[in-house]
């Protein structure tokens, strides 16, 4: 049984880490970008960002004033048991979100869409989002928080098989250029692309591709991995850099995730996880151990499974 107090305390620590500490994989990617950048203004911007990450850690202050919309991804091993059950878990995550908003402090971004009511704590109807995943085996729970900005850099389009790779490229470039101008997408970014699923799952896949895969990761399908590399290069050949200034770096990594879709369609979403690519992860065990990391490790072979049954599942065991 995993202690609910430990879950809440860990969740508070994760909120603080996500807001303040740029993940190492993104930092390494941006440092590499800064070395290749030769546009005067875009170089200045990347250097300023690198200084900013240092300042944030030294002062323990949020790296960006827009601390995004905090959300939670929860993954559980099949044998995980939580003290108080799922309702207690959700309460703990909502309390941690509210408490960290005051303690860090974060910007209380979340308001009612019509009445603009602000509880000043990033909690409200449907906020923070809590999404779930499961893995075969294991008594642990993974808490992942992502603080992503919410206004620009993301788009969806219904494409068809006849649009082909040429159509996918077109929408990819359109999204990068549209939101890259004036730096609205806060690039260079981790670009996540969702392909397939249905409209809602396509958006979810693309967002997870951007937020839950680290820089340097590749899709296990070698042909998709080749597309990821090609798209990164394509994005970086636009001639645009940070803030939409002339430059060479729009894309730090391009992550593509796919889901089976309607036979007539080819849904596509594009998401940009920005210069403040904020995520923090911890695995909690029933014996009280807590392991912190920055790789969500969300897209396991189980999450991407294609078959009816999973080897070793309870159904198969029964047979």
């Amino acid at each position, binding site marked *: 049984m995993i202690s609910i107090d430990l879950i809440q305390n860990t969740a508070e620590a994760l909120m603080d880490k996500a807001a303040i500490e740029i993940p190492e994989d993104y930092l390494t990617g941006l440092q590499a970008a800064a070395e290749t950048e*030769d546009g*005067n*203004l875009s170089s*200045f*911007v990347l250097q*300023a*960002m690198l*200084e*900013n*990450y240092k*300042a*944030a850690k030294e*002062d323990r*202050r*949020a*790296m*960006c*004033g*827009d*601390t995004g919309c905090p959300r939670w991804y929860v993954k559980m091993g099949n044998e995980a048991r939580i003290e108080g059950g799922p309702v207690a878990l959700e309460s703990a995550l909502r309390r941690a979100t509210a408490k960290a*908003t*005051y303690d860090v*402090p974060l*910007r*209380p*971004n979340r*308001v009612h869409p019509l009445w*603009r*009511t*602000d509880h*000043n704590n990033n909690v409200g109807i449907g906020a923070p989002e809590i999404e779930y995943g499961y893995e075969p085996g294991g008594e642990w729970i993974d808490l992942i928080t992502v603080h992503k900005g919410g*206004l*620009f850099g993301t788009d969806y*389009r219904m*494409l*068809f098989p*006849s*649009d082909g790779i*040429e*159509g996918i*490229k*077109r*929408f990819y*470039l359109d999204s990068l250029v549209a939101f890259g*101008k*004036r*730096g*609205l997408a*806060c690039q260079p970014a981790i670009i996540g692309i969702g392909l397939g699923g249905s409209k809602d799952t396509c958006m979810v896949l693309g967002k997870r591709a951007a937020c839950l895969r680290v820089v340097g990761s590749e899709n296990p399908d070698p042909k998709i991995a080749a597309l990821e590399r090609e798209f990164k290069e*394509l994005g970086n*050949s*636009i*001639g645009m850099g*940070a*803030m*939409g*200034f*002339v430059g060479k770096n729009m894309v730090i990594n391009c992550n593509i995730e796919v889901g089976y879709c309607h036979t007539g369609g080819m849904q596509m979403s594009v998401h940009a996880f920005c*210069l*403040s690519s904020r995520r923090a992860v911890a695995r909690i065990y029933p014996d009280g151990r807590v392991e912190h990391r920055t790789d969500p490790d969300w897209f396991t072979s189980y999450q991407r499974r294609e078959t009816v049954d999973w080897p070793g599942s309870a159904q198969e065991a029964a047979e």
Partner: protein
Amino acid sequence: MSKPREIRLSTTPTPEALAELRLGDIVYLDGLLYTAREGVYMRALEDKANIPLELPSQSAANFHCSPAAAIRPDGSFNMGAVTATASFRFAKWLPEWMAKTGAKLIIGKGGMSSKDYKSYFVPNGAIYLSTVGYGTGALLGRGIEKVEAVHWQEELGLAQAMWVIRCNKMGPFIVASDLEGNCLFERENAKIAENLARVYEGTRPATLKRYGETDDRSDEVIG
């Protein structure tokens, strides 16, 4: 590669100091600035509430910003990071706001169009400063000397409230428009546009179009 010029600027700048600024200069600010975005604009301009500051004598610097900040139980402030929000959405209110408050520095994300600059920035002797990144929230946070006050937080919430901040070498900011109404972002867009046709080679427009992006009601989503 040349490094941009760095300049210290007052938040109540003289016309001469503003005339000195060139597109792409890096600016650090000293003095009082206030945050105002849609909440403050609506309350001051549409609801006609009295602005709780003497403008522009106290400050001529309007920051399109919501800080990452909290008010402690004793009424003191904890402000960590500050960064800007995209300014183009505020074009609806800015001409009236500038006329009413004498703002000379509009500070935000992404700038405005040169049409905006020429139609109401230039006549008011104002320029636009862009934050950097975006966003260097921690660096800008270091430039906060003191949070002087917060107004209208009951009515608007912490994110939309009018925060009054005393800054000491707060920056970096980039000069994104000048007193002639030239626009840094449009200059950069034009340079990048020259290359775009080549980048788009080997792509094709989507079969299913979007309806409603123009006012032509005879549009269809096919064809």
